[in-house]
Each structure stands twice: as C-alpha cells, then as structure tokens.
C-alpha cells in the first residue's frame, strides 16, 4: 500500500509545487431512487479548481464507477490497480447502473498549492 502523504509530497516536490495545505476529504455519493425504483441521481459533481485531488480508495468503489475531471478520466474496472489517480478542476463521480446500494464514499487527499 502506498503511503498517501509521502507519495503526494514527492509528486509535488518533483514538480516544484509547494503545498500550502493538504487533508483527507471523504466525498459521499448518494444513489437516490423514487418509489418505483427509478434512479433519480447517482452522481455528484463539484469544483476542485486550482487544487489537486488524489483518489485514495479506488479499490473500495464499485466496478464501473467513472470519475472525470479536467485533467483525468478514470473508469474503474475489475483489473484496475490501486495506483493513485490525480484530479483537478470540475470533478464528477458517476456510479454505475449496476450499483444498487444507497451511498458510496470516495476518499480523496486534497492538496492546495501555494
């Protein structure tokens, strides 16, 4: 398992970016259905402009989850390994249709550069 803080620290150092602030940040995606079971919403979209978000728990998200952002697109598949994916800008987490639970938590390491 990769140590998140070390990994991010090194990444940012290599790119000559100074970290002003960093923290773990969970994002909960809810799957909302109406009485008939029709899915009203199973995605969340939020702004992460001028920040780096590293996905920490890819292995906990359902297969088929799609996370898009300005700099990265990730489709979780059965063979996806747990490399840390990086996002920047408008982030959207879309749960797959096959997901039938009510909520799902994506854990990010948020980095705000100086």
């Amino acid at each position: 398992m990769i140590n998140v803080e070390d990994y991010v620290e090194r990444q940012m150092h290599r790119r000559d970016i100074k970290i002003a602030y960093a923290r773990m940040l969970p994002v909960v995606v809810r799957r909302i259905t109406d009485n008939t079971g029709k899915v009203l919403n199973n995605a969340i979209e939020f702004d992460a402009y001028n920040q780096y978000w590293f996905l920490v728990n890819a292995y906990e998200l359902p297969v088929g989850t799609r996370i898009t952002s300005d700099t990265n697109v990730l489709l979780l598949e059965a063979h996806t390994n747990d490399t840390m994916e990086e996002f920047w800008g408008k982030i959207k987490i879309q749960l797959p249709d096959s997901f039938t639970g009510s909520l799902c938590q994506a854990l990010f390491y948020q980095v705000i550069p100086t």
Partner: protein
Amino acid sequence: MTKTRIIYHPVPFIVRQPLTPVTINTVLPGHIRKVTGIKVVHSVGVQFMTTAAYLPVIGYLSLEFNNKCYHFGHVDVPFDNRAEASDAYQDAAIDILPGSLLTGNYENKVFTGTEYQKADGTLTDKWSNYIVTIYLKALSDD
C-alpha cells in the same frame, strides 16, 4: 552550432474500447524545445463504423506537458475523412523541458451504445479500434 528548426512530431494512440478512457503517457524527444502548434486528428478506424464523412467530435482529449506541470486543456477530436479537412494547427507556445513527459487522457464520446459494447463488456463486430494522432508542431534543435 545547432540551429533551431521546425519539426512535426506525431504521437499516435489507439482506442480499443468505447467506454474505457485512454491514458497517454509518453516522453517527448529531447531535441524538442518548444511546441508552437497542436493538432489532433483521427487517423484510421472510424470510417468502418460510420458512413458519414464528417463528425464534429468523436472524443475529448486532455493534454498536459512538462511532467504534468502545464495543463494545455481540452481538445475536441473530430472525424474528418473529407479531402478538404482543415490543416490548421491550434496555436500554442509551450517551452518544453528536455525529455519531459507528455501526459493526458482521451475519452471516446461516440459509438458508446450497447450495439458497440454489450453489457457484459464484450465488443460487437460493429466496433472498430481506431487511431487518433496528436501532431505537435515544434521547434527542434537536433
């Protein structure tokens, strides 16, 4: 004495599945000093899936230069099999660190229905792999 001169550097990548994003991770040749123009074109493959000669967007490409330090942004990738397809390059002025990474990702946006990839993930015979090429107009000093 080395002289700076123009060079056109293609970076081709293949798209093999409609839904899976393609990750681009490649090192630019060390002699490239500056990128002055970018053009992204469909090369071959899509013509096996459509009878149209022109589709404005078949996918989106996000590109980063200089070891992920510079996000160029997003480029629409058109399918244009007409002879009069535009040859113009998108302007850019990116100083390139020698031997740095060109990274990015590509998302296919058309041909995503179940007639191309069934729910169990297998591809149908309507799908055809296709190749997209990123052309970098660059100044080189080799």
